């Protein structure tokens, strides 16, 4: 037993050393390997979900494709590693994946152990109600009965929210999410509360989805973004600027269709982004045309959003807080300069 403990301890030390050495040059490793290893969800509608042909689709997996496009000029050089909620952090720690893009909420304690990137999707808890109730805001929910899943933070968030607003409410709790939405569908309560992105997918499982609407209020903060190992700021720059490039492209009106045309643009900010002027990509270990590659192969943030979770998808989630900063949202990219 003692020797076993010793060898385990030795193994951990070696692993820690190896991880320390490995994490310092993720970009070089990825380039040498020729593929990006991306931790993805094992199945979440709109974020990481295989289609009928077995291709991954979703906002989170498209982010990895964008990183791959920036590095290799090829969005297909990604190896998706589907991870459960339990597996995801050890997989990142051990170096099995280079980046975790799996609807993970940015929290303080997680940030202490890993690095978090820009928020790719602002999620939060929301409400689903019947259209015929003619409610336009969660503020009008006073006295309502609300179906929630038992033992989740959902229940606590509702208590916080209604108490702070001095409104009456009644919780009707169920063990499973599926049961909860069925109960709401059969009229057991006036509203159904869960994470907003899940609410949209769940709405489709109701008998008549068009009779229901998701209220605009979000009562908790769930910022979802990519994660990587600590101590590798160069790799962090690649991750961060992949997202910023997609945002900046949307802001400047550059999309997959017109990106080639935009190469001829004389606008200085377009030229800086697409690499026809300056060498910004090279400063973070990529090429001059890194942003062009991302937009050409994957698209700008707005395109990716609408395709996976927005109006061009079945979820039909409105941009809301995920809109650009100059259109009332929270998505804001630092300038390329």
């Amino acid at each position, binding site marked *: 037993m003692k020797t076993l403990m010793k060898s385990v301890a030795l193994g951990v030390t070696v*692993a820690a050393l*190896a991880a320390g050495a490995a994490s310092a040059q993720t970009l070089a490793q990825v380039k040498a390997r020729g593929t990006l290893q991306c931790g993805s969800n094992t199945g979440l509608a709109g974020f990481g979900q295989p289609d009928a042909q*077995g291709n991954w689709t979703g906002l989170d997996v498209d982010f990895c494709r964008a990183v791959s496009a920036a590095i290799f000029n090829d969005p297909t050089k990604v190896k998706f*590693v589907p991870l459960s909620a339990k*597996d995801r952090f050890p997989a990142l720690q*051990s170096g099995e994946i280079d980046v975790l893009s799996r609807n993970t909420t940015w929290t303080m304690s997680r940030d202490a152990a890993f690095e978090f990137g820009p928020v790719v999707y602002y999620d939060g808890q929301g409400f689903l109600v019947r259209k015929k109730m003619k409610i336009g805001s969660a503020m009008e929910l006073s006295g309502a009965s609300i179906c929630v899943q038992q033992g989740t933070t959902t229940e606590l968030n509702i208590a916080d929210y209604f108490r702070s607003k001095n409104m009456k409410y009644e919780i009707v709790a169920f063990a499973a999410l599926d049961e909860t939405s069925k109960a709401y569908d059969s009229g057991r309560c006036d509203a159904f509360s869960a994470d907003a992105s899940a609410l949209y997918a769940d709405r489709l499982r109701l008998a008549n989805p068009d009779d229901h609407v998701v209220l605009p209020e979000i009562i908790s903060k769930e910022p979802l973004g990519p994660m990587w190992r600590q101590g590798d700021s160069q790799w962090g720059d690649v991750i961060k600027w992949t997202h910023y490039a997609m945002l900046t492209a949307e802001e400047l009106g550059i999309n997959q269709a017109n990106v080639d045309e935009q190469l001829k643009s004389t606008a200085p900010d377009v030229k800086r982004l697409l690499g026809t002027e300056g060498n910004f990509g090279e400063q973070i270990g990529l090429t001059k045309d890194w942003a062009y590659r991302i937009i050409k192969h994957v698209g700008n943030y707005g395109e990716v959003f609408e395709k996976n979770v927005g109006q061009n998808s079945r979820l039909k989630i409105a941009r809301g807080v995920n809109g650009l900063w100059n259109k009332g949202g929270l998505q804001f990219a630092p300038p390329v300069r």
Partner: protein
Amino acid sequence: MSDVFYIQKEPIARLPAPSSLVGPLAWARANLFSSPANAVLSIVTLVVAVWCTWKALDFLVLSAVFSGADREACLAKNGVEPGACWAFVRDRFSFFIYGFYPVAERWRVDIFFVLLAVGVVWLLWLKAPRRDLGLIYFLVVMPVASFLLLNGASFLGLKPVDTALWGGLMVTLVVSAVAIVVSLPLGVLLALGRRSQLPVIKFFSVLYIEFVRGVPLVGMLFMANVMLPLFLPGDVSVDKLLRAVVGISLFASAYMAEVVRAGLQALPKGQYEGAMAMGLGYWQMMRLIILPQALKVTIPNIVNNYVALFKDTSLLLIVGIFDFLKAIQTASIDPQWAVATASVTGYVFAALVYFAFCHGMARYARAMEARLNAAQKR
């Protein structure tokens, strides 16, 4: 020629048994309605059985939806709730079978299925020609060919396909075939080791068997998947699927060892002594006298293990490998098929496929048992 008529020359035609003893009515009276309590029970059971069958038939076939492109097909129409959503299974069928395997390369998986089927039939069909060649094919040619096919080989012009892309029924079959083939010989060796006179071999066999049997399979898969990479240096990575296959095979062989040991212990000591008196060495004795009898005794348990093993492969889903069941579960989350009946239909389909495989194994084992027990019959 005397006319003595009182002698009956021909046997009188046998009268049929009274209708109270034969025929369906008599059978029903004897087996179903022998007492008032039995009659009530029979009627209640019959009614429940008919009702369940009717409901199942209605859900699965009569009011089921067989074609359609998305969830719209399986939605309630004019307030009538449709039954099973087979359109969902049809749409995602190739995902259930091949997982993420690249569409252009899926013919390789089909060839693998054919190779596997040929191997199984060649080995298991007793009248097949040259079954000795069949064994070589099954244990050497087929595994190598399958590996080259599925994994890819650049020197043959086959594009490499990463095991992360393997999925669906294909993974379930690969994992269980490997585990089934590996676990029996390994189990026999461990069982012999456990009964060995050599203390070191005995000690390690016991240690291994008891340790593995004492750990849940889920724990072992987690160990292999989450802990192992932490102990290995960063640039060494063992394939995820390989880790799982090794884990399941080792797990299955520990159980197999105990099954085989039961067979070894069931043999009378005289068999061992007789063999030794004939001047046979240890391996000859095992190969010619002991193991054939011991394995025959344990056929039901061996197959029982195989059936359990086949179904255990669905635990791969918790380590993020898309086996058959996980592929079905994942597909049913897709908003394209977000209707309540889609996931139910998916599970029914999974049950049918698992049943077909497991029942097939069980039936073959029963036939085998009957053949081997011919000596005991009179």
